[in-house]
């Protein structure tokens, strides 16, 4: 079992790191099981590849497994072998039951965060000039209408943010509005959560439909203010 020891220790260490160490790094959070499974799968694949890259390492890795499963005169391991033969199918059965049994928990989600906008909202450019006055006005509108949720620092941590799941978008994160064109923001602000298309299901967005309260010009100004305040730039093609 000597050559098997290292891979087993490595798998356990990787699991412990993903489950207990990584979530406790400042600014981090627990990983979903889908991600832990993915990383463990890669680790197992890597171990398998490395251990079978030569004849000697393959024999050192595989022979103890083969001997344990099929060999004779393995002494005290015989009981363990039967244990594995009994427990393994039970484990598979338990896993199968767990994944198919009726549960009162809501299903795991793969929500589309950025569904494609309708055709009429693609390629629009901001009609409001990017002047200091307009940016200032936009920030003013933002403070009045958006900051309760999206936060005064544009970081998604407004006073009302804790009441929402999923949390309001963090505009200071370079992976949110910096990836989008201004026309996309215009569509999302104007139409809100109820305006999301079918592919955006489940429609878990509490974003109000601002077109009923704000004129288009104000929305465009808010967009200017958002990008400036969050220190981001919209996606452009020039």
């Amino acid at each position: 079992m000597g050559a098997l020891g290292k891979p087993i220790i490595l798998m356990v260490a990787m699991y412990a790191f993903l489950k207990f160490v990584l979530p406790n790094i400042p600014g981090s959070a627990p990983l979903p099981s889908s991600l832990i499974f993915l990383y463990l799968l890669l680790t197992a694949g890597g171990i398998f590849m490395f251990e079978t890259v030569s004849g000697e390492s393959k024999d050192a890795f595989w022979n103890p497994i083969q001997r344990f499963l099929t060999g004779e005169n393995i002494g005290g391991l015989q009981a363990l072998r039967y244990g594995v033969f009994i427990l393994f199918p039970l484990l598979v059965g338990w896993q199968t039951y767990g994944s198919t049994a009726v549960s009162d928990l809501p299903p795991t989600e793969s929500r589309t965060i950025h569904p494609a906008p309708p055709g009429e909202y693609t390629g629009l450019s901001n009609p409001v000039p990017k002047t200091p006055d307009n940016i200032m006005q936009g920030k003013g509108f933002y403070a009045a209408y958006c900051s309760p949720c999206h936060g005064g620092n544009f970081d998604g941590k407004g006073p009302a943010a804790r009441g929402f799941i999923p949390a309001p978008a963090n505009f200071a994160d370079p992976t949110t509005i910096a990836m989008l064109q201004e026309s996309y923001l215009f569509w999302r602000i104007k139409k809100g959560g109820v305006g999301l298309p079918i592919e955006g299901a489940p429609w878990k967005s509490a974003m109000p439909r601002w077109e009923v309260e704000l004129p288009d010009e104000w929305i465009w100004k808010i967009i200017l203010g958002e990008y400036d305040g969050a220190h981001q730039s919209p996606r452009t093609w020039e």
Partner: protein
Amino acid sequence: MRVIQQGVSMVQRALRAVGSHGEWLAGLLLMAGWLALPSVGIAAEGTTAGPTEYRDIPYVGSRNLVWIVAQLHLLLAGFVLGVPMFAWLCEVIAWRGGEKRYDKLAKEFTKLLTSAYSTTALFGGILLFLLVAFYPKLMNYLTDVFFPSFLLYCLLFLLETATLYLYWYGWDAMQDGRKKTLHVFLGFLLNFFALFIMIIPNAWATFQSSPVVLADGTAFERAWAATWNPTWWPINIHRLIANVVLGGYICGAYAGVRYLSVRSPEEREHYDWMGYVGNFIGVFGLLALPFAGYWLMREIYQYNQQMGITLMGGFLSWLFILQAMLIGVLFLGSNYYFWLGITYRIPGSEGKYRRAMLMMLVSLLLCLAVWMTPHSLVASIEEAQKMGGAHHPLLGVLGVMSAKMTVSNLMILITFMSFVMYWRAGKQDTAGWAKLAKAVMGAVLVLASLAVIVLGVWGYFVPAIVRINYFSTSQVLIVIFVILTITPLTALLLKSAKTTTEMVWGSMPPRAGYSLVLNAIMVILLMTLMGYARSSSRVHWHVYGVMRDTSPYAYSPALGSASFIMAFCTFSFCLIVAFIFWVATMGDKSKAAPGPGKGELPHGIPAMAGGAPEEQSQR
């Protein structure tokens, strides 16, 4: 199912009506009628007033059938257009360098090509019939736009077929002197026509995604404008490279299967070497493929933001996580094959390179982990609550393009270095400047890797357009620079190097053959996946923004249903290829088998199987 149930209940009602005496007769008649229901379904729309827009078939559905046939045709066509490129290159190497084994290899590649060619044409014909039958309105429109190119395509097909026949059947007859030059020229022509045979249908397909429609002008002007649409050349380049990759890996898989089945040492050596060449060709193309893919996606995004978001951020974005997984397995499989080659073909090298292999493997896995980490994670309600949404606060940054581009470039660098390691294994430098050259190569590699990472991280802090236009392009140029610097330097070093351990062909373990097969399956799955992505990005349009899909199938299938069809296409393609290769090698087996009757067969082996002229000169 509803149709079946209606049919059955109809039969039952009728049987009750006719009573017990006429039961069997009525039953037979009604059963015959029930079985003929599909034809009623097919013809149903044709009897309505006005021109027919769509036809359908029950149970399978017109869209699914067209999808499967189109995908199989594309896969076969990719193989048929990819193989001549490297078959011809092998022939040129043999012609200029005098190494006969390359000529034999080129001939073996061409044998596979000849057998696959007719099947490709067959599926193309079936696809055309199905399209005309199921989508008459769309086909009318496309014919109206592209009529001149249809004629050109037919002409090219005739030329390609004639050239292929001359190339294959003239192989043995054109071996010497000027005849060989003519044969090599035929190989060039074959590739020339093949290129145009690929790019003309690409114009039809890309027009559907990014149409350019002229209201006025002659038929030729309209066809030309429609052909030169924004995604035509990105697709042409992407498919050209992908065809080489597909062809290389399938030839590798063929060699892998043959390697596992042959017994004689000579054949084991030959198929081991062929497997190596197939894997090398696949990797060679794979190194360039991500660049072409990135360019294509950039053009799509620029052409239409909606389509770009549907693909990269919308409901199709999950396909790119699957794509990362498949490409990752392909990179791992190709590297694994190189490493197996070092340890098994070059005895005694394992100890020297094991540490380097471990470092490369760990780096590849880390890169793959980043590539496969989605921006929006699959999470339960509790998990999402703990993360504060679908994005992980720490790992969420790995989910965007800057990270993906960085790791894909690093994986290309690692794979390239894996090949260089294989190339250098078993050789000792003798040149006086070897130490300096190795220091330069090491410095170039380290600095390039650092530069790729720095640009990747910096990419988070600059506007998207700067990242896309300058940083990503610079990363690609840096990788190309490394390849163009290290390749000639290594070649120069090895020119004067002393061989310390001779390479032993035919000594690879069975798992090497299996890894070649796995690589081929991965690349086929990858092509079926991307075929679905490209088609689905048009959503409910036949021709994006111009002709709407008004059939009952104007919806995008869920990813689960789509993956079922992709898996079915992959499985079917593997079966077809296995059958073609089996037929292609039938002649060899009969020739190899002893017996009085077999010796007289060579002239009578069916020509279509691609086995006829094989080895006649060698017997």
